[in-house]
């Protein structure tokens, strides 16, 4: 009990004495958490968005003969071997003809005199929605052309290819800036913690000279580290939440929301972030003590 009282008194006194640098550390931690989670949020949502855009990720394989129902399973297996696939549909010329008619709309009378048989058999392949599949779509299409009786493979070549490159670029950017930010965050936090402790170096040294035990010295520092990490990440996450609300606010509207359901971090993710920043702050403080208070 006595011990705890002393530690708390110490902590309060430290804060009173050095509140400006404590506040600085807190702000730094918050900013770092904000940065990091901001990028995490964006990356997360980008992946989701990509998967929605990928709804159009349909490849059509035109065949020069019908695939007998008995052979369809083999075909499917071959396709699934190469890439993860959402669903595979075998389409007869009749079905294609109906589809074409629908697409032409008012102009459908062009087809009036024609027979469905001029259209080939085909297979529609819907890819699983993720960036990996998107970026491998070209390879996949080449693979499909080598299957037996394939006449031609078709997909929204033009824009899908560009889009996939674009997404790749974005992914790289987000990862790169994420790494940069993580580095800086660590650097900033450890730097400010170091500075706070250097400012208290004299005090800790005097305490050492007066015979303070390790637990006496480390107690307040640990509590401070904990508070810094805890409050810092709470603040950062709160700021992030407001950013999130702001973005959502500026992107409401049926079309958009439908496309990008911009979602916040999940609870487990939030907890991991909280835990990590507490660990970082307390750990950093302890390491710094060992380094700067030699006596």
């Amino acid at each position, binding site marked *: 009990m006595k011990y705890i009282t002393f530690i708390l008194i110490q902590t309060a006194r430290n804060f009173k004495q050095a509140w400006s640098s404590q506040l600085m550390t807190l702000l730094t931690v918050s900013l770092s958490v904000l940065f990091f989670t901001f990028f995490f949020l964006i990356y997360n949502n980008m992946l989701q968005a990509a998967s929605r855009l990928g709804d159009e990720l349909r490849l059509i394989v035109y065949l020069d003969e019908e695939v007998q129902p008995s052979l369809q399973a083999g075909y499917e297996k071959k396709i699934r071997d190469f890439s993860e696939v959402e669903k595979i549909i075998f389409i007869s010329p009749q079905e294609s003809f109906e589809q074409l008619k629908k697409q032409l709309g008012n102009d459908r009378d062009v087809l009036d005199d024609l027979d469905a048989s001029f259209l080939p058999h085909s297979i529609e392949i819907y890819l699983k929605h993720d960036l990996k599949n998107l970026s491998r779509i070209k390879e996949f299409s080449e693979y499909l052309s080598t299957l037996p009786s394939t006449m031609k493979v078709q997909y929204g070549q033009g824009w899908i290819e560009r889009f996939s490159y674009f997404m790749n670029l974005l992914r790289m950017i987000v990862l790169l800036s994420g790494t940069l930010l993580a580095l800086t965050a660590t650097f900033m936090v450890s730097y400010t913690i170091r500075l706070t402790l250097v400012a208290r170096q004299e005090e800790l040294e005097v305490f050492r000279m*007066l*015979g303070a035990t390790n637990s006496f010295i480390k107690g307040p520092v640990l509590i401070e580290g904990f508070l810094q990490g805890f409050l810092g990440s709470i603040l950062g996450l709160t700021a992030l939440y407001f950013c999130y609300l702001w973005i959502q606010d500026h992107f409401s509207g049926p079309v958009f929301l439908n496309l990008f359901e911009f979602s916040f971090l999940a609870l487990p993710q939030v907890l991991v972030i909280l835990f990590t920043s507490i660990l970082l702050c307390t750990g950093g403080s302890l390491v710094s003590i060992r380094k700067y208070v030699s006596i």
Partner: protein
Amino acid sequence: MELTESTLLLDVVKVSKTYPPDVIALDDISFDIQKGEIVFLTGRSGAGKTTLLKLICCLEKPTRGYIEIGGNDLSKIKPVSIQKLRQHIGVAYQNFRLLPKLTVFQNIAMPLEVCYMDRKNIRTRVHELLDALDIIEKINVRTDKLSRGEQQRVAIARAAANKPSLLLADEPTGNLDSASTSRVMDLFQHLNSEGATIMIATHDESIYKKTRHRIFNLEQGQLQLIQTEAVA
């Protein structure tokens, strides 16, 4: 860290201290101090007085030789034991080492907090000391707002706060007028009568001239006994 029953408190054996690169501060010093003694240490500026005191309170390590306090060889005991030991040694540093942003009270309370004394006793003890040293009216003033002589007395009060078994005072009266000096010496006398062993490094002839205590003199790293204790 319990001190043994023997009457020998401090035993310094063939201790040398060389600061890098080649400053020989102490050269093969040996002496011992009995419990309850008062000992003076004199010597020219730069003779090594402060160095010797630092070795005793483990702020520096001897280059050669060893030091025993209450039977514990300082070079062999564990860090935890050193911390406990320091709680029994009060040191008034020559450069005070007060915390400028804390008040007089907070500074003097530090060694008491370190051994978890409770608030009430701390307050009583601090008042007692400040009364004795005549700076009670400065109790809630930050130490950087004090005159140098007031700071010096605070440093002495802090050293004496925990009723140490061994009190090391390094030039305790350098910034004090004669009235304050005699108050400080009275305090030391009082602590001594309560059982504390006291070692005072000083230039101030007036405080040791008329005593009957042992006086050591450091010169070029060598220690000489220049006055043996007179039998009462």
